[in-house]
């Protein structure tokens, strides 16, 4: 065969070769696609099979459970089950109510019903320190009266009960609460002064039972040559734990004038 210098024939052969190449690639690609599709198909097929099995299992289990429930409800008496849960509810509610009744002491007023009326317990505190509590036993009759109580004699109980006990018992109790808490606060402060600042006191702390009049001598430095001052604190307002009049004297002469912390 002669190598014909025929561009057409040469172009023809190469073009033909190209065409054949393309055909081969295409068919290979088709084969690959087909194989991929078949793989996916088989995977989906297995998945479907698995899901069908699972469905059948669950159906069988559901049937079993229904049968079991039917069997068990036949054996148990119908009115017993609701009563048990009612009891549980009542028990829980009882515990809750008991706890709430105990929690009332944090409001300052708590109490217990008695055969005669109610025994009210008044709790006191000062700056977060929980202090003593006092009780007052009330007889619920017309007129309302106090059966007995643990309120100190210097608290104006008669005055308060004459004013408010018959007309507004809530106001009476809260006023009493105010007086008792103020007294407890003053007493606590006086006690703390005596114990924690003993080094500064040059003599005994003199006070009255209401703790609304305090008198003491103190030094500015616990050890040392500083001069002693005499202090006198008066708490005119019995419902507060802060003094209304303070006098500080030095050697009998008034160093500072009295001042009022309330107008």
């Amino acid at each position: 065969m002669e190598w014909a210098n025929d561009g057409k024939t040469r172009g023809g052969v190469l073009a033909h070769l190209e065409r054949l190449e393309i055909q081969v690639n295409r068919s290979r690609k088709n084969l690959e696609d087909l194989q991929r599709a078949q793989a996916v198909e088989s995977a989906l097929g297995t998945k479907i099979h698995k899901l069908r099995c699972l469905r059948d299992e669950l159906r069988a289990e559901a049937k079993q459970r229904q049968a079991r429930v039917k069997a068990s409800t036949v054996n148990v008496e119908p009115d017993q089950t609701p009563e048990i849960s009612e009891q549980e509810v009542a028990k829980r509610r009882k515990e809750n109510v008991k706890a709430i009744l105990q929690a009332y002491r944090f409001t300052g007023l708590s109490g217990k019903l008695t055969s005669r009326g109610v025994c009210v317990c008044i709790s006191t505190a000062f700056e977060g320190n929980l202090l003593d509590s006092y009780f007052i036993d009330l007889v619920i009759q017309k007129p309302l009266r106090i059966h007995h109580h643990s309120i100190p004699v210097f608290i104006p109980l008669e005055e308060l009960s004459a004013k408010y006990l018959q007309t507004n018992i809530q106001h009476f109790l809260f006023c009493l609460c105010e007086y008792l808490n103020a007294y407890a606060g003053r007493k606590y402060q006086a006690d703390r002064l005596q114990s924690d600042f003993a080094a500064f006191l040059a003599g005994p702390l003199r006070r009255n039972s209401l703790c609304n009049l305090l008198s003491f001598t103190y030094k500015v430095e616990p050890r040392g040559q500083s001069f002693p001052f005499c202090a006198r604190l008066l708490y005119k307002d019995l419902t507060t734990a802060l003094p209304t009049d303070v006098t500080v004297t030095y050697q009998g002469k008034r160093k500072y004038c009295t001042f009022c912390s309330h107008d």
Partner: protein
Amino acid sequence: MYQSDSEGWASSKDLRSHLGHLESELRFLSTLTGISIRNYSMKTEDLTNTEKKEKSIMKVLQRHRLSGNCRMITFQLEFQILEIQNKESLSSVITDLNIIMEPTEYSELSEFVSRAEERRDLLMFFRSLHFFVEWCEYRKRTFEHFKERSGPARRGVTSLQPVVCRDWEAETKRLHSRDWSQDQCTKEKYPAAVHLPEGAASSCMAVRSTCQPGFELVIVWRVQIDEEGKVLPKLDLLPKAPQQALKLDRNRVLETAPLSFRALLGTLGIEAALESLIKSLCTADYD
């Protein structure tokens, strides 16, 4: 089987009656104190370590959660109490206090709440809350009373004699429980228009004369809680008048009105002072 059933039945009855008794005790306490606790829970944590045990000191930390309401105000509290028991005594100290209150429109309360939290004064919180609510209710009742009784004048009625009293604080406190509906003798209507600008729980009352519309008296009644938790009412008078009237006011009545009002309060007490103030707006109509 039968026996256990009957025992179960008997104890259930006991339980229910016991629960009923407890619930009535709770209702009673809620009415007595005016404070309704709806929920409460507590957790304890033992902080005693071996060192303390040797010295026979016991330390327990209690975490409390409490929620409820006092009339229209609801509260939620979380606080911690540290209990230390040694040979001589038991001490209980509130070591942390957190308070959430609603409604928040009582602006006087937010400052008071932060003060109570700072001081960890739980009891003062409840005490002051009670007195605050009491004063707010009294203010509401008083304002409503005057609003209802305001309108066009009726002829030929007798006027109230003012009550003179030295201890006005005590008098007004006593008058809270007064039943307004029993007032048969004073069914008259005031010849003035009373308006509550902030609604039912208003802290101020505006009184306008029906015959002289340019004049208005605004009474501001605030309920304040001081540093020590004491609840006090604070009333002020703000008069309003047209410019021409101010020019004619040679005796400076309008200028000195707020001070005079304070003096009036001290003498007559809150209700009588407000009553005479409303009447003074339209004396001409009273013949």
